[in-house]
């Protein structure tokens, strides 16, 4: 039995900011959901099921918040699933929703991911005082910075590459009205003059802490035929996980990431991602992860990813634009960040990305990861249905 093709016909997100003080948690998710429905020109009654994702419940202090959010998302009387796969959750949530359509369980599904970080403090949620454990010796960046150093050692990349990524992503964000950071006076000099927080990671190369939500309406062929705007078609999607820490783990280029990408490319019939994929929205919480993921995802050979960044290939007008939306470096409502990558990929192939639209975006990859670089979720979307 072949799978039902899955189309994205509605996309909505909130304007991401440090603190949305004018809405409740329900109000935040509702805003994104409403915009996705409006984009698809559908009503709550048209939705068969809701799949919601977010990162740890401790971040908002609400256990299984989907129970309280059922009313706001029009889920009463419908199936509602709640996904949690750490930082990759926004991507995983979209894939779980897509499976409901692909399996022909439902025709039209609303999927949504959010984080309202201003309700608490993410570092509190991540560093609960677990007895007997060695206290964390550094903040979030301290967890990633040693891996960045390992990448620099392995690839021989010049130490300016990280700042190039940050400079590019923050400029891209200026073209995205929903992005959190809008640094209008950004210059490369300013990025490079920022203090080193966790050397080799500068303050300017870290992600912000945001309140935000992102939603998509996924549907089957019949639903896509009724859509008022061009749909994005899912050409491949996969999740891969590996353990948090283990002997032989490659934290710079995790095997789970490679396997996940390979599965997506196989489904989509991609043999040369660098040539056949037009743009990428990848999960880059610290600037150096752009060259690292370019290698992990097969866009560059091992040790060569930084050359794509350095030569401008990943710029908005480059040959392989990366993080056209401004990326996680400009917007980070943790649980939603993965779905924003997936949604931005879909916006590009639909030609709906506005000022940060790239030309000839026929096939775009959305990428999310989380945990100790162990959970991966990706999808490839295109402007034409699969097998057409």
């Amino acid at each position, binding site marked *: *039995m072949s*799978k039902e093709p899955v189309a994205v016909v509605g996309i909505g997100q909130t304007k991401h900011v440090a603190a949305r003080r004018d809405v*409740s*948690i329900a109000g935040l998710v509702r805003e994104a959901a409403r915009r996705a429905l409006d984009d698809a020109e559908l009503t709550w009654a048209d939705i068969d099921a809701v799949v919601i994702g977010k990162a*740890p*419940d*401790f*971040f*908002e*202090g*609400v*256990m*299984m*918040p*989907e*129970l*309280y*959010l*059922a*009313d706001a998302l029009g*889920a*009463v*009387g*419908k*199936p*509602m*699933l*709640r*996904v*949690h*796969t*750490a930082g990759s959750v926004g991507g*995983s949530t979209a894939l*779980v929703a897509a*499976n*409901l359509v692909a*399996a*022909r*369980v439902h025709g039209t599904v609303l999927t949504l991911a959010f984080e309202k970080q201003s309700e608490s403090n993410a570092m509190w*949620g*991540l560093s*609960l005082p*677990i007895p007997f454990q060695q206290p964390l010796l550094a903040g979030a960046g301290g967890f990633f910075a040693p891996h960045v150093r390992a990448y620099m050692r392995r690839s021989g990349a010049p130490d300016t590459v990280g700042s190039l990524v940050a400079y590019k992503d923050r400029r891209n964000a200026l073209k995205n009205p929903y992005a959190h950071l809008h640094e209008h006076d950004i210059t490369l000099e300013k990025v490079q003059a920022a203090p080193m927080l966790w050397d080799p990671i500068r303050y300017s190369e870290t992600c912000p802490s945001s309140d935000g939500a992102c939603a998509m309406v996924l549907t089957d062929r019949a639903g896509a035929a009724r859509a008022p705007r061009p749909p994005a078609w899912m050409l491949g999607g*996969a*999740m*891969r*996980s*590996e*353990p*948090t820490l*283990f002997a032989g783990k490659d934290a710079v280029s*995790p*095997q*789970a990431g490679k*396997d*996940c990408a390979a*599965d997506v490319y196989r489904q989509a019939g991609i043999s040369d991602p660098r040539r056949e994929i037009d743009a990428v929205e990848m999960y880059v919480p610290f600037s150096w992860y752009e060259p690292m993921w370019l290698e992990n995802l097969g866009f560059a050979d091992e040790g060569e990813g930084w050359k794509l960044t350095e030569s401008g290939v990943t710029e908005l007008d480059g040959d392989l634009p990366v993080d056209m939306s401004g990326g996680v470096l400009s917007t980070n409502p943790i649980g939603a960040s993965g779905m924003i990558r997936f949604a931005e990929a879909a916006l590009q192939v639909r030609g709906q990305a506005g000022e940060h639209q790239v030309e000839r975006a026929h096939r775009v990859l959305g990428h999310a990861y989380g*945990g100790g670089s*162990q*959970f991966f979720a990706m999808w490839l979307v295109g402007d034409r249905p699969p097998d057409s």
Partner: protein
Amino acid sequence: MTREIAVVAFAQTDHRRTSEEFSEVEMLMPVLHDVLAQTGLKTADIGFTCSGSSDYLAGRAFSFTLALDGVGAWPPISESHVEMDGAWALYEAWTKLLTGDADTALVYSYGKSSPGSVRDVLTRQLDPYYVAPLWPDSVALAALQAQALIDAGDTDEPALAAVAARSRSDASANPHAQLRDPVSQGEYLVRPLRTGDCPPIGDGAAAVILAAGDRARDLCERPAWIRGIDHRIEAHGLGVRDLTDSPSARLAAEKAGAFERPVDTAELHAPFTSQEVVLRKALRLGDDVRVNPSGGALAAHPIMAAGLIRIGEAAARVHRGESDRALGHATSGPCLQQNLVAVLEGDPR
């Protein structure tokens, strides 16, 4: 044509008041080994893995990442996690198998209620603006529902006591149950519910293997075919719901095809005696249906696993030839807010 998918193996811990000598992964791992051994499969043979658990129960963020150590996720596996009871992890795995992307799935869930005060922990599920600041605990909410049932003439205290007695008596044949002997109804915990009307607090884990089509027949002598599975949620506010009814359970059952033909067995996830009354009515279970032969959640209630265990127990009865058509049910949220129903059948004997 829809793919045929079955539960082919089920395993669970011996549920206990506390498992403090084990970490979560140490508690979970033997169950994973058990369920794999039943089928002869290894982790690397499994097409998709999905789990259910709760950070709030564990008291730490990302608790499920440590449990993954017990799976042996290397080489990397296709895997997902729901912050829900494992029954919903099973649902996600079922959809994955339906797409044809995988032929087998490992589903597991676990929960330790012993480290925290579970009555208080569950208050954090409630509307964070109007209700959670009052800290109404899970027994109190169930008691409000029980009183509504009594007021409506749907039950009375002796009838609730009979549910409690039957459950614990049936559990005497279940080596995994935490309460395996009749217990006295005891004092009111929150009136009208007595201690006997409430589930034991304890720790446990469970795992299930799903397989599609001929793969299921290879792995299990009598697969428990999932004829239908569906879940539905209700409004969150208790004051807008009719607590004596469960329209979400009824709708899920209808969508799962439960009403097309009678079932002979039902494993209901009713942590409180009064909730069995609600579910029997909503699911139209007559007196001839064997309800909770395992003892149900009143005999063992490892939160996050108890719903998956209901499906597992229902499937195991099909495997053993003790049932031909069984219903497995799971619930989540205050006063049965969200409900899942699976209908399982064995091949004709």
